[in-house]
């Protein structure tokens, strides 16, 4: 049985290889006849109304055609920098043969021009927003960069707001995004390596890293995983994430994402690799560690005492958000002796007359919260107010006064719901964990919760992200990494990058130890 499946898989792989080979052979050349070429393109793109083919002649009867897509190109550039010099420029009378090199060098007044000789490159070129110049009698074509389309401007990201720090966010346009990064890291070693993924969408994907800081094995691994993606569409970086992650069946994500250029800059300066996907403001960074979910940019921008307190608050919120309902159910159902007597009386009084057991009560309220949260994201903005009234008053106040749920329950759900927003990166895993722990608590009490926690810990320690343990730097213990894990040490003490992240260039600071505490010029 297994043998059969194996054989089948092997033969499928062979077929794929053969397909690739034949596809390479077919790669058609540009023919010398302009008519043939235009016919080829027409048959490929069909009757698309936005593909414009402008035929004209210049010099001493050289026939040519410009092909571009309306809406993706800058017409002004085409008119003034391509057509005008060719037809009316002072050198145009000298042109008597379709000499592509001469035209490229002397006639086209556009900054970025490439010559190509295959039909596929031509089609790829104008589909990406370039203008293609084909000439009768030449088997080469010029791809002229005239890209210009409607795009969103750089705005403050909606999902990650900050009090202090840069307010720029990535946009859907890849070039804007790379420029935002370049502006942050003006370093010749910043490599922005572009590939194209997706057979139908031909989405541009950039691998960004700093040469000399990022480990070459890591970069190679990222590139090889990207190469292995064999799909027809990449619409968002989430597609890439799900294809390259180490543990696709885990509830924990092993690839980090962000909308902020300063976050990406900080991460690639630590030796990580970023993946920018055209068409989405969300940029991926790998490897991801569990502690990263608890870090924000402001941890580093503000002074460290207060930010350490906030970081510890974040860890506590995480525990609350996954455990609070479960512990409430376990204690009220199985371990009433753990509650101080006075509190027990108050709680019992509040629960008096509630028709459901604590587990069902919690389940109803958690479900209601998840419904409200989802509705809050999906609803049209204009009816937001109505929803918040329904949510706050009906679900909370009315449910309690009607005696369907107890008041302590509402408090528990409220704190659970608020805590999740402190750690947005773990929000999805926490929502699932919460239900798992709730069920364990309802069946086995605190013992069940303990077993669940241990199981989670086993799972977490078995995870890896691009061959780095997910729980790094806690295990394997790394003192340099721990300066930025549970607590954040002052910036000037973090002299080295986390161990292993950068083998070639582990130092952040120079040899001169800049310690503000020992400054002489006081």
């Amino acid at each position: 049985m297994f043998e059969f499946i194996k054989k089948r898989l092997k033969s499928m792989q062979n077929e794929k290889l053969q397909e690739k080979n034949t596809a390479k052979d077919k790669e058609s050349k540009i023919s010398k006849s302009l008519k043939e070429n235009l016919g080829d393109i027409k048959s490929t793109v069909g009757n698309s109304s936005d593909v414009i083919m402008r035929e004209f002649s210049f010099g001493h009867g050289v026939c040519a055609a410009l092909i571009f897509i309306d809406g993706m190109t800058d017409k002004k550039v085409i008119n003034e920098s391509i057509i005008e010099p060719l037809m009316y420029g002072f050198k145009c009378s000298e042109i008597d043969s379709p000499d592509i090199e001469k035209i490229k060098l002397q006639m086209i007044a556009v900054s970025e021009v490439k010559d190509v000789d295959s039909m596929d490159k031509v089609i790829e070129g104008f589909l990406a927003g370039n203008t293609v110049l084909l000439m009768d009698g030449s088997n080469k074509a010029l791809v002229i960069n005239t890209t210009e389309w409607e795009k969103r401007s750089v705005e403050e990201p909606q999902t990650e707001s900050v009090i202090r720090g840069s307010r720029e966010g990535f946009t859907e346009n890849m070039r804007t995004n790379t420029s935002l990064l370049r502006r942050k890291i003006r370093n010749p070693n910043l490599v922005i390596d572009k590939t194209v993924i997706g057979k139908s969408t031909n989405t541009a994907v950039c691998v960004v890293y700093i040469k000399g800081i990022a480990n070459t094995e890591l970069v190679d691994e990222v590139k090889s995983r990207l190469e292995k993606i064999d799909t027809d569409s990449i619409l968002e970086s989430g597609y890439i994430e799900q294809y390259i992650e180490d543990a696709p069946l885990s509830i924990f994500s092993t690839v980090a994402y962000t909308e902020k250029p300063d976050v990406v800059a900080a991460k690639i300066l630590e030796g990580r690799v970023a993946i920018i996907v055209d068409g989405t403001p969300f940029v991926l960074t790998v490897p991801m560690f569990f502690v990263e979910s608890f870090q924000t940019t402001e941890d580093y921008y503000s002074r460290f005492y207060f930010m350490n307190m906030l970081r510890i608050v974040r860890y506590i919120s995480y525990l609350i958000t996954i455990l609070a309902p479960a512990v409430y159910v376990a204690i009220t159902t199985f371990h009433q002796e753990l509650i101080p007597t006075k509190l027990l009386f108050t709680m019992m009084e509040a629960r008096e007359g509630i028709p459901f057991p604590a587990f069902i009560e919690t389940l109803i309220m958690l479900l209601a919260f998840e419904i409200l949260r989802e509705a809050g994201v999906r609803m049209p903005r204009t009816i937001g107010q109505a929803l918040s009234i329904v949510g706050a008053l009906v679900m909370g106040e009315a449910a309690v006064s009607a005696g369907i749920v107890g008041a302590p329950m509402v408090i528990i759900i409220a704190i659970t719901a608020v805590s999740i927003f402190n750690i947005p990166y773990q929000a999805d895993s926490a929502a699932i964990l919460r239900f798992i722990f709730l069920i364990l608590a309802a069946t086995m009490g605190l013992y069940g919760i303990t077993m669940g926690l241990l199981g989670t810990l086993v799972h977490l320690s078995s995870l890896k992200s691009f061959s780095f343990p997910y729980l790094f730097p806690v295990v394997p213990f790394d003192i340099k990494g721990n300066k930025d894990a549970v607590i954040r040490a002052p910036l000037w003490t973090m002299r080295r990058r986390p161990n292993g992240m950068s083998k070639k260039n582990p130092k952040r600071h120079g040899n001169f130890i800049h310690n503000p505490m020992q400054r002489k010029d006081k």
Partner: protein
Amino acid sequence: MQKETVSGRQFVYMIILFLLGSSLIIGASTKIGQDTWIAIFLAMLMSVPIILIYARIIHLFPEKNIFDIFTEVFGKVIGKILTSLIILYAIHLGALVVRNFSEFLQIMTMPETPQLPLMIGVLSVTIFLAKSGIEVLGRWSAIILAVVIFVICFTIASSINKMDIENFYPVLTHNFFNLPKDAFAIFSFPFAESVLFLALAASIKKESSSYKIYFSGMLAGGIILTAAVARNIALLGAAMVEDSYYPSYSAIRIINIGEFLTRIEGFVSSNFILTGVTKITICVLAASYGIKSLFNLKSEKNIILPVSLCVLALCYIVYNNTMQMLSFNEIYAFYAFPFQVLIPIALWIGCEIKKKRL
């Protein structure tokens, strides 16, 4: 598949947790009351030669586990017999720990719950952990050890006002022969149980020294155990330590800080759960490695579930009640002697002869 390796430091953590295993709760409950801590030191001293032998065996045959060494030294037939003996010991030890664990939970926290669900709960975590492999076990140990040490330090610090140094006096007034006897009991449980690490030795990273691993593990484990025992004696006094089944648990009940931090004995049971799970996992893994080499299997991963089920079945039938468990603890030292001392010594002699001939 790449071979799983564990760094020397993580191996030390595993040994410490293994030693603390169930002994942190039930172990070291002896007849000599306030002198138990001396017995622990004596037991550590007694275990030095045997641990030297374990480390020597690993040193002579690096990157091999005890089962491979058996066949290499004694040939196929005797090797397989010894392998099956060690497998039986590992499964039995795992079953004993699970039973200790479930008895403890039933007596202390859930008197009306039958033991089977408790056993299934702990074994399901164990299976998950063992299936994730020894590398994950190493990483897990690093975290768990931090938690365990934190809990012990915290309980000592928060109970310091209730401690009474008088509880340690008078020193050495018990029957003189009881001291070595109890030391021997502590030697066999938990120190010499670390014989099972010979079964996992193949995963130690090559560059780390086996002597260093074994000794630092034993030393740290012994010191932590002594600290816990000394805490119990200081809090409870000799008479109560002798009387209670679970002295650590009883000791922590006393803690009361400002009427707020009270009844934190759950902390101690968390310690027991954490170390217990590690110990059971190591037993299950050792048995699985053994079965793997006994039947020349490709991987031990598929064996873990059946082995764990064996452990479950065995721990369910091994005792009828708690009293039987406690009385077995008294003769355990003699039962375990062949596995802990005789077989390793035989193996060591065989190893030395084999190496000389080569």
